[in-house]
């Protein structure tokens, strides 16, 4: 029987239960009091003693960040010992005077030192200057008697021995932000910890970052260190072996010189990036120390945007390099055949407008091969019309355009592959057929990044693998043990018939090697190079943009492209050279640069095979700076 009786009276049995509850609290109180008795009375002397001696401080020992190495183990990014100056208020005696004295030596304004002091508690040494040079260090050491309370610590500092070389690739580090610290996942960082901010430094932060150690340091009543009670060693970060070939990177930089633009080289067989340049570059070193605001302003106000990685973030019209993709689409879709010829009289009339070919005399009757070799615009206007914009877009996407390639660097741009739907969405207007003509020669709405164009050309030559270009080959522990190997990944398969591929490769080979080809300046003596030039007119597109008078000439100059691969039969390198506002055609400006880089590549290959360059043998990893051996705070 289940009698449920509801009542609104008091709580049944309340008195007993309240008594029980009181008893529990009384027992709890007794336990707390006994514990206090135990701590304060039975062991009070002990603990008092401990608190007297408890002048124990925790001093962090910073871990050395992992190195970044090239594919043969050459160090590209490293650490070096840096000296930081600290001031301990308690030891300084007359603080005003101490600040005055030291400010002269370290060349810091006394007000700035006072500001740093205010942020920390009086019993902790406060960093008043980072990374002093050897000369300042020597001055500090010689004047040590006049500088009470001043200590110097040795900490690892990031160093980029090759300066600007590959700066966009490596990225930079900087102090962790308060915002990052406030979210749970940054528990290993403290105020002032350095963290990867961009490039590989950011992407592989978790591997590169070591584990900071720390030590219990006993100090006397005035804060002077007496002894180290306990020490937990720091553990250096893991090293990152990249796919980059440092020598090729150098050669590319040498060939590119101080133009603005980008160079990316890749092994088309596996998507390994061999070299990547974005110019102008910056020196990542300036970020690993105190950031000089003047330098910083120069950097961010530079109209050429040195911080931008043009190879993955610069979006440009592909120009004639795009014709290869249009031709592939046309062949695959059967709208043209190899021998189908079109007439070029120097321009093509469509609607009520004349669409010009770059060659004003015209190419006469052209079929596919010569249209590619001589980059005939009129031919591609007509092919484009036959295909229609949606087909062109479909193939562009198959080649990986219009989407990020997925390379391990942040903020990659996706470019634009225009089609009817895109235009409706973006502008709310229907597609005009005239726009198809511009798009067919890569001059319309289309935008590509150099790395996208590179993966597209690589896919053409490697049997259709559109790779996710990659930069990290392996993660290697500080002891040299390989912890993780990173394998290339094909994002998608581009399926083209073998005939199409053969026809296109033959055409691209002709661009470089046949009379009348637009990229004869990229020819090599013994290796067959294939490629396609592109010259992008900026004026027509940017006529509406306001640019200051004195810059006008520069900002309205043409861009130059050259997308290439070699050897044509079985390419081991794919290379894109992009020169921003070069003012010359792809064939005149970009192709010669590409030629030099390709030559270096094959020369290096030959040298390595012959073992001429002894230093190319994978060198054992250099040992990290043994920071845990050096006392962190060396009293002066």
């Amino acid at each position, binding site marked *: 029987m289940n*009698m*449920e*009786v*509801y*009542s*609104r*009276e*008091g*709580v*049944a*049995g*309340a*008195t007993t*239960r*309240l008594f029980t*509850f*009181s008893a529990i*609290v*009384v027992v*709890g*109180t007794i*336990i*707390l*009091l006994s*514990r*206090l*008795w135990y*701590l*304060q*009375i039975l*062991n*009070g*002397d*002990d*603990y*008092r003693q*401990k*608190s*007297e001696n*408890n*002048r*124990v401080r*925790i001093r962090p020992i910073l871990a050395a960040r992992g190195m970044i190495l090239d594919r043969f183990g050459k160090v590209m990014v490293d650490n070096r010992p840096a000296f930081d100056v600290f001031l301990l208020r308690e030891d300084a005696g007359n603080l005003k005077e101490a600040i005055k004295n030291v400010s002269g030596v370290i060349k810091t304004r006394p007000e700035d030192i006072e500001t740093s002091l*205010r942020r920390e*508690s009086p*019993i902790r040494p406060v960093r008043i200057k980072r990374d002093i040079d050897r000369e300042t260090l020597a001055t500090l050491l010689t004047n040590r008697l006049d500088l009470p309370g001043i200590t110097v610590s040795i900490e690892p500092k990031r160093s980029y021995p090759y300066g600007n070389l590959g700066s966009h690739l490596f990225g930079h580090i900087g102090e962790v932000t308060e915002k990052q*610290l*406030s*979210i*749970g996942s940054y*528990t290993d960082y403290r105020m002032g910890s350095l963290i990867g901010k961009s490039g590989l430094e950011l992407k592989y932060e978790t591997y590169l970052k070591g584990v900071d150690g*720390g030590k*219990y340091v006993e100090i006397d009543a005035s804060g002077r260190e007496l002894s180290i009670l*306990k020490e*937990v060693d720091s553990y250096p970060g893991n090293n990152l072996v990249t796919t980059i070939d440092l020598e090729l990177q150098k050669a590319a930089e040498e060939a590119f010189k101080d133009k603005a633009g980008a160079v990316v080289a890749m092994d088309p067989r596996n998507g390994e990036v061999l070299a990547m340049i974005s110019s102008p570059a910056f020196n990542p070193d300036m970020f690993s120390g105190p950031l000089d605001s003047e330098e910083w302003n120069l950097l961010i106000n530079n109209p050429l945007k040195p911080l931008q990685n043009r190879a993955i973030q610069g979006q440009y019209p592909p120009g004639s390099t795009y014709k290869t993709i249009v031709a592939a689409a046309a062949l695959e879709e059967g709208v043209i055949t190899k021998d189908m010829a079109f007439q070029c009289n120097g321009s093509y009339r469509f609607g009520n407008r004349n669409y010009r070919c770059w060659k004003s005399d015209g190419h006469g009757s052209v079929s596919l091969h010569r249209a590619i070799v001589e980059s005939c615009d009129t031919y591609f206007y007509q092919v484009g019309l036959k295909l229609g914009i949606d087909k062109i877009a479909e193939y562009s996407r198959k080649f990986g355009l219009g989407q990020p390639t997925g390379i391990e660097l942040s903020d990659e741009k996706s470019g634009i592959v225009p089609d009817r739907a895109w235009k409706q969405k973006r502008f709310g207007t229907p597609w005009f057929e005239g726009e198809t003509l511009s798009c067919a020669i890569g001059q319309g709405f289309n935008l590509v990044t150099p790395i996208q164009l590179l993966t597209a050309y690589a896919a053409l030559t490697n049997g259709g693998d559109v790779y996710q270009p990659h930069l990290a080959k392996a993660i290697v522990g500080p002891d040299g043990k390989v912890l993780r190997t990173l394998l290339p990944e094909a994002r998608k398969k581009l399926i083209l018939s073998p005939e199409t591929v053969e026809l296109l490769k033959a055409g691209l080979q002709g661009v470089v090697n046949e009379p009348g080809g637009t990229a004869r300046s990229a020819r090599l003596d013994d290796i067959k190079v294939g490629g396609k030039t592109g010259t992008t007119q900026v004026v027509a597109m940017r006529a509406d943009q306001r640019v200051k008078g004195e810059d006008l000439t520069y900002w309205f100059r043409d861009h130059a492209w050259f997308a290439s691969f070699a050897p044509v039969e079985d390419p081991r390198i794919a290379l894109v050279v992009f020169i921003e506002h070069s003012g010359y055609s792809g064939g005149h400006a970009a192709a010669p640069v590409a030629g030099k880089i390709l030559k270096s590549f094959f020369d290096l290959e030959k040298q390595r095979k012959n073992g001429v360059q002894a230093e190319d043998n994978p060198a054992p990893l250099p040992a990290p700076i043994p920071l845990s051996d050096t006392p962190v705070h060396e009293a002066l």
Partner: protein
Amino acid sequence: MIDRRLISNFDWALLGITLFFSIIGIINLYSASYSFSAGRTPVYIKQIYYILVGLIGIVIILQIDYKNLERYAYWIYAFSVLLLIAVLLVGKTGGGAKRWIGIMGFTYQPSELMKLTLILALAKYFYNRNKVGGYYLRDLILPFMMVGVPSLLIMKQPDLGTALILLSIFGSIILFVGVRLPSLLIAGSSLIAGVPILWHFMKDYQKMRLMTFLNPEADPLGSGYHIIQSKIAVGSGKIFGRGLLSGTQSQLQFLPEHHTDFIFSVLAEEWGFIGSMIVIMGFLFLVLWGVSIAKECKDRFGTILSFGVIAMISWHFLINIGMVVGLMPVVGVPLPFFSYGGSFIMTILIGIGLLLNIRMRRFG
């Protein structure tokens, strides 16, 4: 207005101990924050403002007959849950957790309000269904949800300590209203089964703290630091303490968070065993006094409500001091009247206001 009879029934003793605790709490906070008064308003000054606001809150609460609260209990409860959801969506972050929301320039911690509104909602629920002979499991489904939803939301912030307080309040209340033994056993064992789920929700640092509690010496530089330093502070106070502003542990800032969760170690260091004992006995007095309020109350709603408030204060007191003296893991439960924090001190004072209210109207 309040009539004369209510004033003559006013519980001056409870108000007295509240003021006593508030004042020594401020003095202790003054000492704890003495060494880092860099420019900003010192925390003890802010705490005085919070206490004044809380006292005004008590005066307001006294105007309303607590029985009227019964009618709005679920609405107030729902409002608190919404605030907790708002915290997760638009909350402010501090010290690695998202616990606060900004209202008109102030930041408020809604999980503190939740402690009181959970008590209100449970009191209403058990008031409305009074079952002779104890509750069945099916009667407890809704209360379980009442505590479960906010606890999960709070754990997500993450704030293990407050979630733990909600669960202790809930446990105390259902044991108080009476549950049939078999139902109790089932509920108990399912709670134990829920421990792995709890573990899953815990952040790494929370797991670390629990592990550290078991063996603090294993990681003296990291998580064990709190407990070791806190024990040294407490122990070094000996019988009479080192005197106001003279505790080296706290003054030299060996102790992190010594103005919030570890405030008691400052008291124990500076006032010794004698001072600590006075405070602990004061808390015991407060709890027993509160129990007598619950006992004298003839009204079921008022009885459960007052008991809930007393349970809330008791658990804060026992868990916090237990943690400071190294008997409990470091879970982040503050000490009433002593720990710095506006939302928390207001919750405690409003709770006291409810007790005063119930006591005052015990014959109504």
